[in-house]
């Protein structure tokens, strides 16, 4: 029983991370039917931007997590949002009327470009350029592990879950209650009619990209905090998993992305524990679940059937 509970905790932490990144994929797809393959790299860029800030703080501030953490998060968000908006403006917007394939390939190109940019040009603390091997990241939330009954939870893992769930709830509230949120839902439903209703769809698309990027940036910093290192390749792996989570939950559906994230995280972890030689096959099981869901519910767990656009 202890094993089950502990693995559940592991799964929830993993799932929270996947969910945060999956939200970016799902929102952008919901609004402009583009799978933003560069989103994983936005996550990675956020992590490195946070690291860059931390490395340049004076040691007195570095040692104070109450100051360092918000500063690191803030810079990560600013840089990620900036990068994402730039890609939207320069690469995706001109291609909005083009065939569906063009922005997809562009997204892959941007993903490669961002990876290489960090690999070749990130200024390391020792003065060299280029983050060719993993770079150390500060823990920021340190302290002893928490013992909650039979399970052990690392402080930073608890922080991750609290922040992730908090942000997801905030996003739900935003989309449900505010005017911009309503405009986002309208644009996702039917952009032409939304425009007829007086919604500035271009602005809404920008807002969508920005929110997705901000969530990914926070996830990036938290990833760095959990593993005390970041690497230019973490975006690729995380992006793949998060995209799977978004599809699993129903791409275009915000609650679905969160649900998909947690389901994916828990399946991976449970497969490792309970399937014989499970750790070898954990990714296989994650995709088996994805395929099974899609066979019975082609639009994902919570996805709605998308009406064909005229």
């Amino acid at each position: 029983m202890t094993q089950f509970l502990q693995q559940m905790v592991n799964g929830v932490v993993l799932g929270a991370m996947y969910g945060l990144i999956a939200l970016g994929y799902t929102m952008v797809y919901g609004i402009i039917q583009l799978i933003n393959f560069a989103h994983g790299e936005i996550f990675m860029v956020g992590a490195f931007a946070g690291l860059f800030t931390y490395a340049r703080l004076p040691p007195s501030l570095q040692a104070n997590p109450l100051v360092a953490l918000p500063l690191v998060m803030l810079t990560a968000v600013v840089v990620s949002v900036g990068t994402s908006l730039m890609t939207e403006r320069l690469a995706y917007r001109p291609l909005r009327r083009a065939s569906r394939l063009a922005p997809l390939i562009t997204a892959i190109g941007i993903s490669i470009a961002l990876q290489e940019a960090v690999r070749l040009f990130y200024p390391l603390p020792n003065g060299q350029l280029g983050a060719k091997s993993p770079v150390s990241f500060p823990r920021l939330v340190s302290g002893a592990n928490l013992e909650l009954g039979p399970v052990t939870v690392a402080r930073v893992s608890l922080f991750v879950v609290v922040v992730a769930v908090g942000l997801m709830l905030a996003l739900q509230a935003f989309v449900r209650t505010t005017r911009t949120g309503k405009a986002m839902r309208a644009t996702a439903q039917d952009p032409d009619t939304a425009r007829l209703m007086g919604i500035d769809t271009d602005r809404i698309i920008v807002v969508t990209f920005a929110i997705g990027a901000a969530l990914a940036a926070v996830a990036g910093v938290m990833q760095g905090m959990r593993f005390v290192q970041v690497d230019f390749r973490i975006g690729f792996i995380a992006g793949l998993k998060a995209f799977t989570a978004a599809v699993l939950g129903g791409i275009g559906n915000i609650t679905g992305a969160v649900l998909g994230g947690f389901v994916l995280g828990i399946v991976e972890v449970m497969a490792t524990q309970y399937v014989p030689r499970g750790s070898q096959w954990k990714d296989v099981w994650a995709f088996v679940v994805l395929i099974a869901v899609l066979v019975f519910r082609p639009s994902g767990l919570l996805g709605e059937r998308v009406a064909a656009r005229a």
Partner: protein
Amino acid sequence: MQPSRFWRYPALVVVVAMLLAACGRDAEEGPTGGGDNDGEPLKTVKIGVVAPLSGGLSALGAGIKNSVDLAIRQANEENKVKGWKIELAAEDDTAKAEVGAQVATKLASDSAVAGVVGTLNSSVALQVQPILARENIVMVSPANTGVELTQGTDPNNKKRQFDNYFRVSTTDDVQGPFAANFATQDLNAKNVVTIHDKKTYGQGLVAAFTGQLTKNGGKVVAAETINPGDQDFAAVLTKIKPLNPDLIYYGGEYPEAQLLTSQAKAQGIKAPLMGGDGIYDKTYIETAKEAAEGDYCTSVGAPTEDLDSAAEFVDSYQAAGFKEDFAAYGAYAYDAANVIINAMAKVLPDAQAITPDLRKKIVDEVEKTSFDGATGKVAFDEFGDTTTKVLTVYKVTNQEWKAAKTDEFK
């Protein structure tokens, strides 16, 4: 023209320029000292290096590349290969087999290449061997430990795979059992958990270790795997914690091992982690910090600092002012480069160009190699494996890898 269509042409120019620039990007050719050839212009011959120069293993790759560079510089200064100037053609395989195949093809199609030092990863070597073998280019690895590279996959029917492939490092069928004997005799480990990263090297090492451990009476209570590139090992560690192992034996490299050991200790698992030469790097200790204390690893050969023959190499390396450390395989790469240089010195002086015939002659000369290098005696057996089977166990003591036991494996 409308303004928005006008930008197509400058954009096209920019894209073409970037493509052309990218084509020449990867190869790094080092400037090397020139020798004088009594007034005649020196002909150029290249020694290639295939190693991970970026990514998690770049510390090891950089050490290899720099050590080969050092050997080439020294050879050029002493005019070892008369009438020829040696150049370095270093390629980055990013520790991936597909990339290794691409850069090997690039080197194989370069007619000036007479030999290649590489690779680091056994999985990459499997792809590179046949490509270089087609052009008969000699390949000397400073670090491959996968047994099948020289002896094939059937231990009862050993067959040499490629006549042009040699290695100066010992194989995993020696390293694994050596570690198992240490675990049984010196660490009294009865219950062991093995983990590997499913790559050629890690998998083979764990298999060899398991075989010997079981012979010694030990027991593998769990055999788990992880993916290279993984960072989150919570699930697999939670699974093995209740088994209370005496030792965790890891087959793989340090980027994953350093995180595995930090997370294991954070979860309260007391057992030390033991690995092979893939984790023998100071990055492992720098990242895992206190969690690494008490961990073990094995590496081929005696510690570089202990060999007299190595002292010269260490001094020259430091004098040359490279940015990176020579790392675990620097001395081996230096010896590997000298194996090729010595063979070239015998074959090339009267030649005009590098012909396939000449490359074959270089391979034959390498076969007969016998000298004392930075890592000890350098000579090859009938499979292309090194005849020296010395290994060392290192332990992390006070945040440094300290040699715990050096022995010759019988």
